[in-house]
Every structure is written in C-alpha cells, then in structure tokens.
C-alpha cells in the first residue's frame, strides 16, 4: 500500500533507499553512486494514495431503473459526472470506472448482478485492485432516515438491507467498511416494504433527492480527501437537521 507522504516523514526511509541503491551500484558500476540521489528523490515524490472503491448498490435492468432501491446507482452516476469518470468497463459482473478525486485514485462500481448478489462483484474487485476494507464505501438506501437525508458512517450493521448482507458475507463477515446511507423515508400507512422499495419517487421526493445527491457528492469528495474527520461530522450534522430549518 502507498500513501501520500510529506518530505520530513519520508526522510527516515531515505537512508535505506540510499543503501539499497549503493549496494546495487557497487555490484555493477562504482560511478553510478552520484546519480542515485536525484533518482531517489523522484521515486519518493511519486508515492501514491491508497485507492478507494465506491460501490453503489442497486438492481440492474430497465424494470428497476429510477426506483427507491436503486438510489445507490444514481449516486454513482452523480459522482461519475462530477469527477469526469467514464463508466466504460465491465469486470466481475459490474460496471466499473477508474478515475481520481484530486490525487486520490477511486474506482466507481455498479454491481450488475441483482441486489441480493452484490457481494459477488464487490469481493473480487476489492481483492483484484488490493483495496483495504476501510476504503470500500458502500452507498445504499436507508428507510430509517427521512427522504433526502444522508449519513456517512465508518462502520455499522446491515440495516436490514439484503445487498449489504451479501456484501458482508463476501468480505469474510467483516462489517468495518464505511457507508453512505441515503434516506428514502418510511412506507406510508401499512404499505408493504418491498412494494415501497420498488416504487419510483414522487415529484416532491425527487426534488429533495436530487438536492441530497448533490450534497452527497461533496460529502464523498470530502471523505476521499480527508477521511473521517471533523468535516464529516459537520456534514452529518448538516444532513440530520436540513429539513428542520425556518
């Protein structure tokens, strides 16, 4: 794994690299000792950030397009549009797009197996691109939050979400990956939960959701660049009370 590093932190690494290059140069040519310094500098300066895997859960097909349960797909579309990433690859039964936010490489994923088999795409992709568990961001719908309210959490349970259950199973039962919950509200009256999830949004809800998705893009960028910090707490606070204003 590589992480961004400033020069004072990498200074302890410098002697080791110097020794390594010195040893090799001794075995081959003695005159190359002078040239090792700029090479080392160039190498050190090109360290790479740890990549992020951002997965939006949803059901594929036109039948489920635009439903409440597919809000994860819509969020991925918004992030791709905001960061100029083209989702042009199919890998491990998922639509994949490679890009970066600032200097941090990210991988946008839309699993094309159905919701209850989302883990079959997430697990192999995380393994192939060597992404740690704490850098896999799952975006899903949450009935515990009001419509349009977002919440970023470093870890949590499955929230009665079948997609999250399957993902957790395919990640060896670990639940320590961060989540972005997008609230879709509660079923009105005695409506069946499944029917509510596969419904489309009403005009008012659609408007609230679009605003929420725009705010979510900013939240995801902040998370990718700064990690879980005070900025994320501020974001969560703003989301919790965004409909309780005068």
């Amino acid at each position: 794994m590589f992480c961004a590093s400033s020069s004072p932190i990498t200074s302890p690494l410098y002697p080791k690299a110097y020794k390594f290059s010195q040893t090799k140069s001794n075995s081959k040519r003695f005159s190359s000792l002078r040239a090792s310094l700029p090479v080392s500098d160039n190498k050190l300066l090109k360290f790479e950030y740890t990549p992020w895997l951002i997965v939006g859960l949803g059901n594929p097909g036109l039948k489920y397009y635009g439903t409440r349960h597919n809000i994860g797909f819509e969020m991925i579309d918004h992030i791709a549009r905001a960061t100029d990433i083209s989702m042009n690859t199919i890998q491990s039964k998922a639509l994949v797009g490679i890009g970066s936010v600032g200097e941090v490489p990210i991988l946008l994923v839309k699993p094309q197996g159905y919701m209850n088999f989302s883990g079959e795409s997430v697990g192999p992709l995380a393994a192939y691109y060597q992404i740690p568990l704490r850098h896999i961001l799952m975006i899903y719908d949450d009935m515990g939050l009001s419509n349009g309210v977002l919440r970023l959490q470093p870890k949590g349970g499955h929230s009665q979400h079948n997609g999250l259950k399957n993902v957790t199973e395919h990640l060896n039962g670990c639940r320590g990956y961060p989540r972005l919950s997008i609230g879709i509200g509660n079923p009105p009256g005695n409506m069946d939960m499944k029917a509510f999830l596969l419904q489309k949004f009403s005009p008012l809800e659609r408007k609230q959701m679009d605003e929420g998705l725009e705010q979510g893009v900013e939240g995801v960028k902040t998370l990718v660049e700064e990690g879980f910090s005070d900025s994320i707490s501020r974001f969560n606070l703003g989301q919790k009370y965004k409909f309780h204003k005068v």
Partner: protein
Amino acid sequence: MAIVASLRDINLFSSLPSTPPMADSSSGTFRPAPPIPIPKYAPSNRNRNQKTNHQTDTNPKKPQSNPALKLPHHRTRYYKPVKEGVISSDGDRTILIGDSGVSYQLPGAPFEFQFSYSETPKVKPVGIREPAFMPFAPPTMPRPWTGKAPLKKSKKKIPLFDSFNPPPAGKSGVKYVEMPGPLPFGRYPKEGMNREEVLGEPLKRWEKGMLIKPHMHDNRQVNLGRDGFTHNMLELIHSHWKRRRVCKVRCKGVPTVDMNNVCRVLEEKTGGEIIHRVGGVVYLFRGRNYNYRTRPQYPLMLWKPAAPVYPKLIQEVPEGLTKEEAHEFRVKGKSLRPICKLSKNGVYVSLVKDVRDAFELSSLVKVDCPGLEPSDYKKIGAKLKELVPCVLLSFDDEQILMWRGREWKSRFVDNPLIPSLSETNTTNELDPSDKPSEEQTVANPSTTISSPKMISLWQRALESSKAVILEELDLGPDDLLKKVEELEGTSLAAEHTYTAMVLSNTDGAAEDYVDEKDRSEEYYSDIDDDFDDECSDDESLDPVGPVGSLPVDKIVRKLRERLK
C-alpha cells in the same frame, strides 16, 4: 302469525263502524305518538352534556387524570409576594428563599432542607402559594392532660440495627442486614467520621462488576420522576442500603434532561458513590465502612409544600427581540418541523445535545411533546432554557419553541479546527502504511514510480479478458445487463474449451503440462535477470523517461516471448 292475525282482525273490525279515512288518520296519530317525546329529550340531554363538558374543560380544569397533580393548592388562590431572605422563623427554625429556592433551616442540620434537591430552578421565586409553614414535625408536642399519670415505658429493650453486628442468619422474624462493604480478607470495618472514611479505598473494577451484576435485572430500586430527588428519598436510600450495598436509582421523565445534576446531587446529599451510569439508571454505592446505625438521620417531610411562584418562562417580548419580531418568530414556528418527539416518562438524555446541534442550522428549534402533562414540558422547557441556553417563545400545541438568542456562537469555527484535525488524521493514516510502502520500495523499486498503478491493473484485467471495454458509454439499463451476461457467457465458453482439450489426449496432455511447467520456470528466471540489468542501466543513464515506460516494455517483451 298470531300477532299478525290479531292485528288484521283489529283493522277489519275498526273499519266497519267508522269511515276509512278516519281510521287511517286515527291509526296514524296513535302510532307515532309514543316515540315523539324520545327524540325531543335525547338531543336536549346531549346538548346539556356537551355544555357541561365544555364548561368543565374551560373553567377550572379540575378533573385531571394524574393523581399526583390533585392538590388542594389548585383550589386556593393564595398568593404572597416574597423577597430573598428569611420569610418565616420560629425560634431557630427558619424558612428562607436563597439561591436554591425555598429552603428550610433546622438546627443541627448539615445542609438546608428542600422539597426537591435536583428539580429546583436557579431562578429565585417571586411568590409563594401557601402560608410559610414548616413541613416537618414540631420539636416537642405537649401531652394533653388525661387526668392520669403517664404510662410506664416498656421495660423491653429493642436493639437497634447495626451493620457491624448484624443479627444472626436464620433467626425467625428478623430480616437480613447487609454487612459492611467488600473488604479484603483479614481486614475489618471501622467507623467512619466523614464521607471519605465511610467510602474507604476506591473500588476495583471487578468489585464494581460484582456489586452491580445482581441489580441489573432487578426492579428493587428508587424511582425518580418529575419531582426529582426529594427530601424523603434520603431516608429511602438509606433503607435500601440497609439490605444491600448498592442502591439502584432509576430516573424517568423530566430529571433525565440533566442527568449530571441528578448524579451530583445524589452523591452530595447521600454521601454515596456512583459506580455505574447507563442512561437514566444510576448505581449508588454506600461505602465500604457504612453502618446503618450511625447513618445521618434527617426528619421526614410530612407533606408536599406548594410549589412557589417563579417568573414567567414565556415573555410577551423576550429580551433581545421586539414585539413584532417575536410575533414573526412565533408565526414561523407554527410551520417549523420538530426535531424530535418526546414520549411520556421517557429518557431524554440526549435532548440538550440535539437542541444544540439543531441550533447550528436554524435559529428556531421546536420540540414536540405529545401526551405529556403541561407542567412536565414546561419544566423541560425551563431546563433547556438554562442548559442550552436559549430563549423560549411558546408552549402552544404541546410543543416547545425556542430561539437561540442574539449572543449565540457556533461551535464549528471552520478555519482553525479543520486543518489541524486533518493534519492529525493524515499523520495517523501515514504511520501504519509507512512500513508496507517501505517494503514495496525495497522489493519493487520500479513499481513505486508507477503512479497509475490502478491503470496498469485495469489494463492487465482487459488483456487477460477479465474485463471488457464498452464501445457505447450511454447504454440503457437493459442493454448493459445484456453486455454483462454476454461477458459471463464468453468466460464460461472459454472454460468449456479448456475442459475439452484436457479430455481429448490424456497422456499427451500430461507430458505437455510438465514441459510447460519447466518452460515457465525458465522464463521466470530469465525475467528476473533482465529486470535487474535493466534497472541498473536505466538508473545510470536516464532517470526519468525510461523509468516511466518500464511496465509497458515489460509487458511487450513478455508477449513477444510467448509468441516465439
């Protein structure tokens, strides 16, 4: 049938002597005659009932369901304005109004007695609702003259309960008395003169767990409600401590808004130590050297004194606002959405934090209290006013409407906070990853230079047919699903082909497989040698250009060798 026949007979009989229209009119008049008075009386009764209900609802509001609120004070209109200081005194027993509201000073008492030690507002009362009368027993009560000499006292001596010498176990008619607290083997309790001595040395973690465990699923506890920690609960807690070392205190409703205050008052007045807190439940330890016989004994309060009159919580024109502004806020508050809904007898531990958080985003905040007593949510409003702090605007419709005030300042001062925190997080993130990056530097120096590592992995996936690039980017959902299924089908077909090859020639396949293994090993060793040579040469000649292009060249050479 008989009844019908009889009716018919009557009709036939009546038609003969009189004319048909007369019969009809008479039968018509007779039939509706009995039900006439019923509809006349019923509506009038209902109207009267409604009126009486309306009157009762409007005027006195006496029929309240909660018996705790049925007090004679509601039927009197006694009001006496008071000022700070002594308002009544009887010898050395005084009733005074000080910083802690109405309090009673008795000779020899270690502190001023109050009705409630935790639910008294910080504001000084402006009036009292009953005459200032001490709610404790008088010091002496003269014996009325009975014409006889006083009776002889009983000669039997009743022993006092002593925790240091508890009655022996198994004795009939004697309840269990708990011995002094957890003491190490070989050590004995000693009388404590002050709180520190009674408590003894601090409890260890395992001792706390041992003491708390039997109380967790037990409802033998002291319940605190809207009046909070009252005076008579002092004696009640000592009674609990007589039988058990830990007294469980469960708070619900109004006191839970400020649990820190409740805990502070509990420790201060009882002398115990709080060893565990969960939400509204508090576990109060009596001390290692506690003796029930030598506990502090306070006189009991014989009745509940009337609550004094405090200044109004809702001002017509709150400070910092004009009348028009206040009215405008109240109008806006009508359509404001409440941040939470308080249930009756709930635990409102996070209410203060929620209100503070909500004030970060809106100058007005509303809390919904459906089903609560008006006095309860007014008390909650008073507590929020002190703790948040804020300005109360209205209690209409069982909702508390608050304004954050002009002097409000946000907790998030963005400029100095975020950079320092982000730096800390950055350093934390860097520390665990320094080692793996170092290892990779040593193992594969050329790999560190390739900042588009993800791109190389991506290209590798494409070349090995694990991934496919889409020609059209704006595919519909169904078309995309078909593409995914096609890719999966292709991979399955490839696997099928491989299986067929293995089955066709068993012996030949085995020999070829062994040969392939040897060749791959040789190929791998060759790659290593070339890799080392190339690295050294590149380092000596050009550090920038060739280094960046190494992976591509490597891949190209691999492909060429495979083709050969």
